């Protein structure tokens, strides 16, 4: 009871940051995590807090700890972003999925509407430039690029609150969007949707920007629900 208030929450916070990095594919399978004491220092928490979060990550089978000379904590070799997404989708109820999408849409829609009023076209050009430079076909790279672009558009709303909310929801929703963008054709379609959104924001067309976001989310949810049904059948 004499543990500083907030420290209990801190272990969960450290756990969530690392878990998101693993499930989102930022930390690759097999990556060695820093030692407990180092991890504590990095996140500015007590060593006991770091130990607790590592334990939770082990319990969730995201991390394995090996003893010995080449020991330490590692991201599990089977960590695969698509797999995590698929499992989460299978375990989620349809009502929860639709609710998550509704929340995501409400926030992202508000962000793009404000961004359309407030962004300078030069700022949109920077985002577009990065999308244009992407030529590869790596789904993980594409997902991160698309997430970054959505975050940057949201930040152009000039609202710190909405941007923070968008970031939080994106971390939750992005693994599902990755499932929608599984094939190259799907990614091409997402890319055109994103480019159309950038055009609308650049042209200060709030209404068009909002409805483009609504269309793409609605379409994504339809396809996720189809996928969910397939998973249940298999």
């Amino acid at each position: 009871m004499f543990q500083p208030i907030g420290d209990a929450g801190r272990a969960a916070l450290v756990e969530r940051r690392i878990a998101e990095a693993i499930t989102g594919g930022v930390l690759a399978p097999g990556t060695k995590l820093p030692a407990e004491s180092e991890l504590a220092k990095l996140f500015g928490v007590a060593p006991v807090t770091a130990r607790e979060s590592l334990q939770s990550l082990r319990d969730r089978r995201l991390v394995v700890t090996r003893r010995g000379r080449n020991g330490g904590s590692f991201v599990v070799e089977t960590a695969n972003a698509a797999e995590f997404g698929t499992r989460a989708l299978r375990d989620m109820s349809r009502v929860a999925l639709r609710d998550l999408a509704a929340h995501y849409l409400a926030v992202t829609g508000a962000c793009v509407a404000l961004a359309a009023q407030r962004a300078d076209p030069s700022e949109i050009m920077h985002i577009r430039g990065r999308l244009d430079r992407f030529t590869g076909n790596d789904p993980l790279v594409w997902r991160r690029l698309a997430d970054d672009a959505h975050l940057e558009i949201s930040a152009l709303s000039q609202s710190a609150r909405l941007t923070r909310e968008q970031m939080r929801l994106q971390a939750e929703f992005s693994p599902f969007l990755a499932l929608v963008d599984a094939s190259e054709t799907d990614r091409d379609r997402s890319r055109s949707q994103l480019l159309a959104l950038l055009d609308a924001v650049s042209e200060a067309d709030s209404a068009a920007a909002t409805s483009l976001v609504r269309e793409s989310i609605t379409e994504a949810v339809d396809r996720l629900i189809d996928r969910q049904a397939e998973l249940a059948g298999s």
Partner: protein
Amino acid sequence: MTAEVTTVASRAVSAVDGYFADALDALEAWQLDIARDIAAARRSGPLTTSRLDELVAPYARQTLDTPGISVYGAGFIAALDSLADAASHLAWWQGPQRARLTLANQAINKGNIDYSELEWYRVPMLTGEAHIAGPYVDYLCSDEYTITVAAPVSIDDEFVGVTGLDVLIDTVERDLTPRLVKLGSAITIVNSAGRVVVSTNRRVATGESLRGDGYRDAERVPCVRTPLEIVLI
């Protein structure tokens, strides 16, 4: 432009320049020192992120204590690919606890955070001059609506990073608006993209862009030391 208008605008210029001069001076105070420290550290071995953190920490503390302006975050951002053990690094302290910034992927797999196109990095790097970036939502460091003041650091001709400090727009509004209100007429401060930083006009919101017909004929006067503009609306 009437004489009266000119006087108000030039007083506003002094107020805005004076306010941000404290921030610019605070960074310029260690721009050369950190270059010297980095050069010395490189001579004794490869420069790592943790060594860089040690070098920057005292300067960041000093910057967070800058008199006259309440600084939210401060530190040094290394030039991309300039360190031995990471592609990018922010040696940054922020918030009431002055906590060192930890980004999960930066901390664990030394992942590359590409800040090459962000205004506070790009402009000082390209111009070789200090810059005031924003207002913008800083989703990398503070997650707040912020202005970042940044100054380039070079060793001989090699760009090695930027020193920087964040001031929350909330703070700028509290500090600057009362000084502008005293000048009597409506004054709006905008950045080079026409985005409102603060305004004494209750109907002009921070963050909005001054575009369109209503604003085209407004008097505009550029500041001298900062890339901001005074608009009399």
